[in-house]
């Protein structure tokens, strides 16, 4: 069987590329920018994410934590030993309340003791001591580190002695920051940190004592940059839930809602941006290759007339496509690596994170592979079209296909006649889905993206077709009354062979993707700004009585550095006796120790609305009517996570017992809290009337300038010595800083994606310039000036830009609202942005059109006519 050798095919492909360098420059650029955005955005975001996750882990001080109210059983200890044998580091943290005293004065003070193994704790983050020193150096069997409020209250200083249990300890240092302070219990009393040996020596941990026990776990580092496999953490969590059924297991992603949400949203958004960059690149390539093959119709017809089979011609152009994909891919990877290296320089002044950057061969291979694969996939339809090129073209141009819109009719003709094209379409979708799923860190984003893309492409094509039809109708009705330039410009949209609908769909798709990224980015960033707002509570007050609350408010109001009124949370200690009418002891709970049903906290909301920072996820908050009926018919709102663990839903009933009173409350709403407000700690919120008259203790949060926290502590201690003040300013600053860093990175990468998208779209428009060359020449021959031709083209481009902008921006708003809903972020309906966006696209299209047509306008007519 005769066959065109690869060498000969490559020679023809390569020569053609050389002959049309300018045009292929755009193709290579499209692929390169797509791949650059992909490798740059993905590479940087994965480095950045790894850095952020380390911060998230430091809030837990570990990858996973198991919290229990009792000491482990022998079986559980065996299980933990086996875990350690598997290479996972385990360290226990014991927390308990105790009385401390000064040996001289014997002044007693309730303190919260935390015993750790200083050689292992913390797995992530650091314990900051004053004077600065490693924890293992400060903590021995006879020393402790204490919170500075303890020094203040007991009038002690470093080096003094403190009595705990049966033993005396030397105060070695003051604790200024504990990484896991936000995930510890906010129990009463100042902090005392000691080693496990010291705990044994104190004799505080007697059998049956009410000590809280936490086990911290650190997974082996599997990644090249010391990263931990997320799925290994998830598997370990499942394993621990089975091993320690009475414990609450949490992983590092659950520690701080603001941080976790920030990370999740950033991950989804960054995935989206990578995919957008890639598809925009592919659109550029598809448009350019289509234009290229249109121009090569003669060559293809000649080869066919010389006996070339379609497969032989396809071989030539397939090699060309591969070569273009490869060149674009290599250039793109180089640019991507440049972006990856340059971004930290741009961001260095804004964020205090230096991601551990290095060039990962796998991400380079992914970028290169994705570039070549998308180029191939998106050029498949024009390549397959080669089979339909008839050799008779070389004898006669006008063939029996003459319809209103060649693109649309060709698409439908293909779908009805040509099974290979359907197969190609399926292949493209399948390939795209595979790429999206591989690239997307969030599988859901990948799935939605692919299906969304297909649906939107079909709708965009239909919409573009409909708009063009309407314009044509308008043109036919008004034809001779329109100024000739306008008439000509509009008529150009229907120029034979002009892929107006395809260009509109490509432009619209690009606009849609760019606007979607912009809208989602804006919403996510503004939401992140809320969760990193500077005046969230950073000092917590524990154990206030009803009578003390007004006085404490007054003291706080007069303190310097307090930026906002304190948020105070009333707590009524209670226990759950029945769930849905069944005795609590008989109910099966998920990861919730039954003994914890005996010590739950009820709160009330004074405003009649969900408290600040709390959102209703299911059901509805109570009405004023239900509030006033609450004494007879109590209702309750409960956090959705707790509802899961207790197995209750909206409409379930929970029976609470407070001292001798019992009440059965109906669950009205499930809520989620941002974790940044005092009410974030409230497990069960009821109307005030339901809890009126029951013994109440108050907890509170207030934001104070971190440098003035000491002053507030002293003022409160002077007036209310029994109230405990917990300073989490340092820990919260970490969270806030990280969230702010996320917003900057999102904004920078979004700007980069949008910029890349605009360049690719510009190259798509530029790709159509070759079609207009002959038209310019004919117009010039007939005496048209350059200005007139430029006006005609401007009208054509402006209409294309406006229509693409309108369709693209509308869909972007639709998709952004859906996407934001799934991310649980409010959708800002900003019509002004959309309108400005549409006009910007039109201006940009006209400008790009002008830039691309600049050389054509200067062309001498004879040069082109001779070539014909």
């Amino acid at each position, binding site marked *: 069987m005769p066959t065109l050798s690869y060498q000969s095919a490559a020679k023809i492909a390569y020569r053609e590329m050389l002959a049309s360098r300018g045009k292929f420059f755009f193709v290579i650029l499209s692929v390169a920018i797509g791949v650059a955005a992909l490798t740059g955005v993905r590479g940087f975001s994965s480095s950045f994410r790894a850095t952020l996750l380390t911060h998230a882990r430091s809030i837990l001080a570990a990858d996973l934590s198991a919290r229990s109210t009792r000491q482990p059983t022998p079986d559980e200890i065996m299980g933990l030993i086996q875990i350690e044998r598997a290479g996972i580091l385990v360290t226990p943290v014991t927390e308990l309340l105790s009385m401390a005293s000064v040996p001289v004065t014997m002044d007693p003070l309730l303190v919260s003791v935390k015993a750790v193994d200083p050689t292992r704790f913390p797995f992530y983050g650091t314990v900051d001591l004053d004077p600065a020193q490693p924890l293992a150096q400060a903590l021995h069997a006879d020393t402790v580190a204490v919170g500075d409020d303890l020094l203040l209250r007991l009038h002690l200083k470093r080096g003094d002695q403190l009595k705990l249990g049966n033993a005396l300890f030397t105060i070695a240092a003051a604790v200024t920051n504990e990484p896991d302070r936000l995930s510890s219990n906010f129990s009463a009393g100042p902090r005392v940190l000691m080693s496990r040996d010291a705990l044994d020596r104190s004799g505080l941990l007697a059998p049956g004592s009410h000590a809280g026990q936490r086990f911290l776990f650190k997974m082996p580092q599997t990644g090249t940059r010391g990263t931990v496999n997320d799925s290994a953490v998830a598997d370990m969590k499942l394993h621990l839930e089975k091993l320690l059924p009475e414990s609450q297991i949490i992983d590092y992603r659950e520690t701080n809602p603001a941080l976790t949400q920030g990370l999740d949203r950033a991950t989804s958004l960054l995935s989206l941006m990578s995919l957008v960059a890639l598809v925009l690149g592919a659109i550029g390539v598809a448009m350019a290759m289509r234009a290229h093959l249109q121009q090569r119709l003669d060559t293809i017809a000649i080869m066919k007339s*010389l*006996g070339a089979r379609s497969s032989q011609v396809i071989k030539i152009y397939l090699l060309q496509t591969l070569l273009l994909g490869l060149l674009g891919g290599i250039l793109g990877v180089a640019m991507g690596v440049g972006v990856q290296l340059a971004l930290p320089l741009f961001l260095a002044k804004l964020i205090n994170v230096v991601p551990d950057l290095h060039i990962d061969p796998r991400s380079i291979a992914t970028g290169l592979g994705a570039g070549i694969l998308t180029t191939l996939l998106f050029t498949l339809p024009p390549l397959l079209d080669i089979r339909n090129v008839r050799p008779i073209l070389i004898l006669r141009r006008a063939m*029996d296909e003459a319809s209103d819109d060649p693109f649309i009719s060709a698409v439908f003709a293909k779908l009805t006649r040509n099974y290979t094209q359907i197969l190609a379409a399926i292949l493209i979708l399948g390939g795209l889905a595979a790429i999206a799923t591989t690239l997307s860190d969030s599988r859901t984003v990948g799935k939605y993206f692919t299906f969304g893309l297909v649906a939107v492409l079909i709708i965009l094509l239909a919409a573009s077709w409909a708009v063009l039809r309407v314009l044509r109708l308008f043109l036919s009705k008004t034809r001779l009354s329109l100024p000739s330039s306008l008439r000509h410009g509009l008529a150009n949209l229907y120029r034979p062979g002009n892929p107006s609908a395809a260009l509109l769909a490509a432009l619209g798709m690009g606009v849609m993707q760019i606007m979607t990224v912009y809208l989602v980015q804006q919403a996510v960033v503004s939401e992140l700004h809320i969760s990193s707002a500077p005046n969230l509570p950073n000092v917590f007050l524990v154990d206030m009585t009803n009578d003390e609350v007004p006085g404490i408010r007054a003291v706080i109001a007069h303190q310097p550095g307090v930026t906002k009124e304190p948020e105070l949370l009333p707590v009524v200690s209670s226990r759950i006796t029945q769930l849905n009418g069944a005795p609590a002891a008989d109910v099966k709970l998920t990861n919730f120790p039954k003994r914890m049903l005996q010590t739950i906290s009820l709160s009330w909301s004074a405003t009649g609305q969900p408290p600040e920072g709390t959102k209703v996820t299911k059901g509805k908050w109570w009405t004023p009517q239900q509030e006033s009926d609450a004494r007879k018919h109590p209702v309750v709102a409960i956090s959705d996570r707790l509802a899961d663990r207790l197995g209750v839903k909206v409409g379930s009933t929970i029976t609470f017992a407070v001292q001798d009173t019992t009440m059965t409350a109906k669950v009205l709403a499930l809520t989620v809290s941002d974790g940044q407000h005092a009410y974030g700690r409230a497990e069960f919120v009821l109307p005030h009337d339901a809890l009126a008259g029951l013994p109440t203790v108050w907890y509170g949060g207030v934001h104070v300038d971190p440098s003035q926290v000491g002053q507030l502590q002293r003022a409160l201690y002077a007036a209310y010595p029994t109230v405990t003040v917990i300073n989490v300013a340092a820990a919260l600053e970490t969270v806030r800083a990280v969230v702010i860093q996320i917003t900057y990175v999102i904004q920078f990468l979004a700007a980069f994606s949008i910029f890349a998208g605009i360049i690719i779209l510009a190259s798509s428009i530029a790709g159509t310039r070759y079609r207009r060359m002959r038209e310019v020449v004919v117009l010039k021959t007939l005496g048209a000036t350059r200005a007139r031709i430029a006006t005609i083209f401007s009208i054509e481009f402006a209409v294309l830009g406006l229509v693409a902008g309108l369709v693209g921006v509308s869909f972007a708003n639709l998709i952004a609202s859906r996407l934001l809903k799934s991310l649980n972020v409010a959708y800002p309906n900003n019509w002004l942005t959309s309108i400005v966006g549409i006009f910007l696209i039109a201006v940009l299209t006209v400008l790009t059109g002008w830039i691309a047509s600049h050389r054509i306008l200067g062309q001498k007519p004879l040069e082109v006519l001779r070539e014909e």
Partner: protein
Amino acid sequence: MISVASLNKSIRNGSRTVDILKGIDFTIPQGQFAAIMGSSGSGKSTLLGLLAGLDTPSSGEVHLAGTAISYLPEDQLAQVRGRTIGFVFQSYQLIPTLTALENVLLPHELNADPKLPGGSQKDGLARSRQLLTSVGLEDRMDHYPVQLSGGEQQRVALARAFVLRPPIVLADEPTGNLDTVNGAAVLNLLLNLNKTEGTTLVLVTHDPVLASYADRRITLRDGLILSDELTPTLA
């Protein structure tokens, strides 16, 4: 060698259907040089396209060397074209990115079977060089089409038409784009090659002088055969 029976071709132009050929019948025996004549729009180029299997008829049949080609699948048709027919076009139709030598070699690369005698790349190159030399382009083999004059380009096209020793050569106004001197030179070369290679030659032209060299003249008007006459000296 070439036989045409009840050949019809219509094309759609928007909502209008135009009948270009309306039932054409003729046979051209092996070795004959036939000229198809007619004014512009008479259907001669369409007829040539159908003879070459470049297009499919609306009805009727074309046989080349005993093979019915009209309704063959595209790839089989390409093979028939490659092995049976050599083309010479009015506008040369060379591949602009290939040199003269590569253009001549291309049909060999596309169609020759390397396992058969004369099918190797080396054989193809030797044959291409020999043909280019015979049309007087031994010094221009490595030139690209854009570096050649119209007459030279058409001579490359002539060499390309004969490279696979096709039994049939079809020529569409081969001198139409050339001046008188170059036109005469190309015609001489075509006739010489036709004689030495022993091919059947079908030439489409509206030029009576050119047609006068043919053994037979078939004249078309409005898609029908107006006259079909042999040149008297050969009759």
